[in-house]
């Protein structure tokens, strides 16, 4: 499951949240599987043993890091354990084994009191069905975590108003949740989770309950907010395309295990197995691939060619190629040339990707 091209800017930043060998097992006696450390020899065998003994391992040896300011997406179908993992991270569920390190500090050892304090200042969470209090107005809902902290009424109102403006809900402060559309309700949910100015932000399928068009809008909105706030984010979704759109890095989960982890491009170009390939096969390559992945070595004179950044999506490169039929030079962030793309080379690259996919999928 090692990713080949992971040298993105995110991985160089310090780790904010780290999940190490996390297990969550449901059943009558989940604890006795973790008495000894022997299980680390063979994770798969232990999980099969649990299943054979009427226990359900919902999260199996889950390990990943979230870097500062990174959007880390966990993608999986229902029952894959993704919601369990995010709930273990926020300790809404207690994991059976493993560590969750926030700034190097293990959350699983925290007392209830410390945990409440962490939730009040460092964590925010957005829920699939919004989880709004039906008896409170928009403003009261957003101010609710602040009220629990015992802030003065003026501070509550001021800070709540700030995030309400951020999510573009000005003017609806006195409405009740039932008077809002789904998209607006989730804006309230987002505002509430941001009101405490958290460092780590969990979003559990935040847009899954919304219509496709609204979902798209909310994704853009989410990316816009993240551009301003730079939170460290764990984002859960069952929608592969959504994951591709917003992820800096992502993990695909199946039956409690992470089957592959990497950047969206990694997954598309190098699916670890047939399961991941099934998801990637439906994705239009030109919308995901970046210029840097399609370069060929420069032959001949490149001085007259136009330059494009390596992070440019291939779809946009097509427009550039239409204007520069002889090809474009692809630069890395520091301005050094990585190579060139010509119309012919691009067609060949895309064709080979498609071939590899069809061969792999058959």
């Amino acid at each position, binding site marked *: 499951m090692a990713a080949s091209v992971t040298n993105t800017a995110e991985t160089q930043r310090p780790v904010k949240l780290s999940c190490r060998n996390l297990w969550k097992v449901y059943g009558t006696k989940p604890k006795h599987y973790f008495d000894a450390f022997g299980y680390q020899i063979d994770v798969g065998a232990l999980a099969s043993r649990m299943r054979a003994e009427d226990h359900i391992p919902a999260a199996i040896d889950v390990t990943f890091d979230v870097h500062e300011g990174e959007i880390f997406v966990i993608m999986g179908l229902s029952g894959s354990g993704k919601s369990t993992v995010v709930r273990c991270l926020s300790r809404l569920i207690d994991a059976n084994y493993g560590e969750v390190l926030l700034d190097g500090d293990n959350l699983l050892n925290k007392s209830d009191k410390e945990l409440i304090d962490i939730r009040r200042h460092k964590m925010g969470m957005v829920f699939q069905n919004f989880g709004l209090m039906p008896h409170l107005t928009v403003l009261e809902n957003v*101010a609710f975590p602040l009220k*629990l902290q015992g802030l003065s009424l003026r501070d509550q109102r001021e800070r709540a108003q700030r995030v309400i403006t951020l999510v573009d809900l000005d003017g609806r402060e006195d409405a009740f949740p039932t008077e809002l559309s789904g998209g607006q309700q989730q804006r309230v949910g987002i505002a509430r989770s941001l009101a405490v100015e958290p460092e780590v932000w969990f979003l559990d399928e935040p847009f899954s309950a919304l219509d496709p068009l609204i979902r798209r809008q909310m994704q853009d909105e989410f990316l816009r907010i993240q551009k301003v706030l730079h939170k460290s984010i764990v984002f859960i979704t069952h929608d592969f395309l959504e994951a591709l759109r917003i992820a800096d890095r992502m993990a695909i989960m199946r039956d409690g295990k992470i089957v592959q982890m990497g950047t969206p491009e990694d997954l598309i170009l190098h699916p670890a197995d047939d399961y991941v390939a099934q998801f990637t096969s439906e994705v239009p390559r030109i919308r995901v691939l970046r210029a840097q992945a399609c370069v060929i070595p420069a032959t001949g004179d490149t001085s007259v060619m136009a330059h494009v950044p390596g992070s440019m999506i291939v779809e946009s490169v097509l427009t550039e190629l239409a204007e520069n039929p002889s090809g474009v030079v692809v630069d890395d962030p520091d301005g050094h040339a990585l190579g060139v793309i010509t119309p012919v080379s691009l067609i060949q690259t895309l064709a080979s990707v498609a071939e590899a996919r069809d061969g792999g999928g058959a």
Partner: protein
Amino acid sequence: MGWPAVILVSASCVLAMGHLDWVAEFPSALQLPIGGLFNAIMKWMVTNTEPFFKAVTFVLSYPMGWMRGLLHWLPWSAFIAVLVIIAYRAGGAWLAGFTGISLLYVLGVDLWDEAMNSFALVFISVPLAVLIGFLLGVLGDASDRAKRAIMPLLDISQTIPAFAYLLPILLLFGFGPVVGLVASILFSFPPMVRNTMLGLRGVPLEIVESGLMSGATNAQLFWRVRIPSALKQILIGVNQTTMASLSMVIIASIIGGTADIGWEVLSTMRKAQFGESMIAGIVIALMAMILDRITFGLAEKQGSTMVKKSLVQRYFFPMSLLMVAGALVVMDDAVPFLGHWPDAWHLDLAGPLNQVIERFVIVSKPTVEAIKTACLFFVMLPFKIGLDKTVSPYTWGFAPTAWHVAGYAALIGLASLGAWRKGHVGLAVTALLGGLVFYIGLTDMPWIAILSILIWFAYRLGGRKLAIGTALGMLFLLVSGSWDKAMLSLYLCTIAVSLSFVMGASLGTLAAQYDGFSHFMRPINDTMQTLPPFVLLIPIVMIFKIGEFAALLAIIGYAYVPAFRYTEHGLRHVSETVVEAASSLGTSRAQMLFLVKMPLALPNIMLGLNQSIMYGIAMLVIAALVGTTGLGQEVYVGLSAGNFGQGFVAGIGMAIIAITADRFCQAWQHNHQHHVTKE
């Protein structure tokens, strides 16, 4: 399987009962003095716990006294003003107007003091019952063990008729208004427990999680997240508790000494002063409706605790109440009629009303008598004592001959055979046994036959567990010597519930088809449900006189409503897609109703039947006031004779019938549901 044995046993018992006494009657040597045992236990309790209960009485009598004092001291104008303002807040101008006019009616008919006494009891008992219910509900929600202890208690306390525990309370707490208070609290807290638990359990997990992620402590999570989210359901509990409390306050007045409105109804009814009784009954009905609409309205209203609110705005409502009341108390001196309703303004409605009633009774007598006799001779008596004793020249117009009997037997046999050939074995056996019961009469059936039939049905419906439960319940009835009375109750109840169900389900079906009819029936149903059952008796007794037929009507009037409501609800909420699919296949209106909607709504309709049975049994004791025989009468006699054991055994007997019927329905429903989901 097993059915030939059941038929064989029943038939041979019927044949043998003329010759063997122990077949016809449960041998009295085997009966145990359970009633006496209860009496002894009670006596022991009374002597040993007297100081405790005396102390409770003493403590409770203070707030009682204060509340009574307050309500009597308060000028009528102040009381009405306060209630009207609350009504306005709960339900707008319409409810405020209704409340004002209703209370003016109470003043006009000179029953103000009696009404205040009843209100005083309700105002003290409701907060206490709500508090107890809320605490138990929270406990039941927090701990599974507590829940397992609480739930059966609730079941029992809601199926044992209220009358049955009036007497122990009377014995423990002594005479006086406190008895009414205690009885009313005991009777009215269960719905609060149920609704509190329901509400707390119904809070969506995500809301709890979002509360946790907002950093709520345990206390904050409970008071600021879970309780507010469950508030609506909890307030519905308050509404139900208020209604139960009022109805028990009325029932409790049967022990007298309370000088409240229930006593007024009862005493005038006993004196056959129907006009007076009717007038007081209307006061109760109005009180019930006011309390119901106000508490329900408050539950419906989403309370908003807006952040932006000044102190004055926040406390405007309670302040306005205090100020209006205060102003009226002060004005009392200057304008005397605001304090005491002048005697000259009292209306004498009773006299004219009595005349109207008399006229009506005389005019309608032939029709009424005809209906009554027809029902008695063709439905009630055959079921009670059997066709063999009912059919005579005086009743049916001919004497039964062997040919008639043979014809009847052939008819039953054909029906049974028809069912058999269509593969409905259960139905075939039911037809045979039903034919037998109608011929012999339920009360004349040998106990062994009834026992074996019931156990067989229990086994068929719910397996071994239900069969054993049924057997134990029936055994209690036999051993305690209540069997005969129980059969009398069963007979009346079966007829009343069957008629209620047929009437409720057909009307409900109509209402599901026609919106206009549904709108027309809604207020009628609401009224029937909010009326304390007592009041229902008044017009029925007026027209039909005392007797089993009047009791039958009273039960029907009370028990048809659930069948109506569940049927309408079930038919109206059949899945849209199924209805669309069916109409695309070209079903006619009738086919849609009978082939599509009815089968799908059946579980709901059966729930209505279940509820109708419960309501019917609850009404049985009240109906005993107008002259029925059976367990209801036993409860009532036990109460008036101060024989705790007698009343209590009968009460348990009724609870057994109610619980058995309930489990039968549930088992049937379970089987059916299973069947539907399998498809």
